[in-house]
């Protein structure tokens, strides 16, 4: 299959005749990255599946208005992050539980989840990560697991690089302390 650049894909999307084809290619290019980013936030596979499909529906509706003032994947990441947070908030509202307790519930479900095959230390790490505040958890995931740079994360989350560095460093120290103590 021919590999197109993001600009080429966007141009094809704006052409009505090739819109579906371009969108299909965009999905194949980014679906796994977006899925895993969402999955690390919402933890459960079925929830991540719902969120990622909602994300791509939104992308279909909004892509022709994308101004290209940022990279396509940072724009996609931003939609995915916002949808994940909205999903967690709606879960909290639906079950009338505080957001902190939602993450506690996710943590306790993790150990029995058949879709989680990590070893003991990875399980401990994931449970520790779930104890972080939501935004800090997302920043940590994007830097530690996804390997994104601070300025990329800054665009996605609309934060300063200074704030991101501080948040990430703080998260690292908390997690190290937790892993050492447990």
């Amino acid at each position: 299959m021919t590999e197109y650049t993001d600009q080429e894909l966007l141009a094809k999307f704006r052409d009505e005749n090739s819109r579906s084809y371009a969108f299909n290619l965009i999905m194949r290019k980014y679906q796994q990255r977006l899925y895993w980013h969402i999955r690390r936030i919402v933890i459960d596979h079925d929830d991540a599946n719902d969120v990622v499909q909602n994300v791509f529906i939104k992308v279909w509706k909004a892509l022709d208005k994308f101004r290209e003032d940022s990279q396509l994947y940072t724009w996609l990441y931003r939609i995915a992050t916002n949808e994940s947070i909205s999903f967690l908030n709606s879960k909290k509202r639906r079950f009338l539980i505080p957001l902190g307790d939602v993450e506690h519930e996710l943590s306790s479900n993790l150990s029995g989840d058949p879709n989680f095959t990590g070893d003991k230390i990875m399980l401990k790490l994931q449970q520790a990560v779930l104890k972080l505040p939501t935004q800090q958890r997302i920043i940590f995931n994007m830097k530690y697991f996804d390997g994104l740079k601070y300025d990329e994360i800054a665009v996605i989350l609309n934060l300063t690089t200074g704030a991101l560095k501080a948040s990430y460093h703080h998260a690292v120290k908390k997690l190290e302390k937790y892993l050492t103590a447990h």
Partner: protein
Amino acid sequence: MNNIPKNSEAFSDEELKKAAPVLFGINKENAFVVPDGYFEALNASVMKQVASLPDFESVSNENPFIVPDGYFESLPTGIQQRIIDSKSKRNSVANWIAENISRPVPKYALALASVMLVIVLSAKYFNRTVHVNCDAPQLSESEQLDAAYLQQLDEPVLAEVYAEETSATTETQDEGIENYLLDNDIDLNSITEQF
């Protein structure tokens, strides 16, 4: 590590790795899994949903709604009339309020009110009933009568009576001693010789 600029992200990451050896020593291999064939199915599922979205571009631009004849010609007049009606309603309410409530208060009204208030409070204060709590023991009727009689007497009369009573008491004491000596057959002269 020596070649990495100190203000770079790579340097900062290296420093962090040293500070958190346990965390950065973990194998980051993805611990989450997905069912087999998930991503192929995901693609198809999303495309199916996209295809079922309403295509607003294919919808006709023709307006399906109609209005009565001459509606837009009469609309400005109707709106202006409503504005005039609402203004006059507001004015009548405002006028009523202005006539009955928001009249200018006379200059001396406040002073007069203050004076009246002081007069009323003073009258209440000076006409108040004062209750005195008397803990003194109650006198009997005869004692009350004696007290009333004594109040009517002059002071010199009282002094004379008191003196008579005192002398009578002294004489009575002397007579008592004499009677004692006589009753007990005691010789007064023998007592005198001893002293």
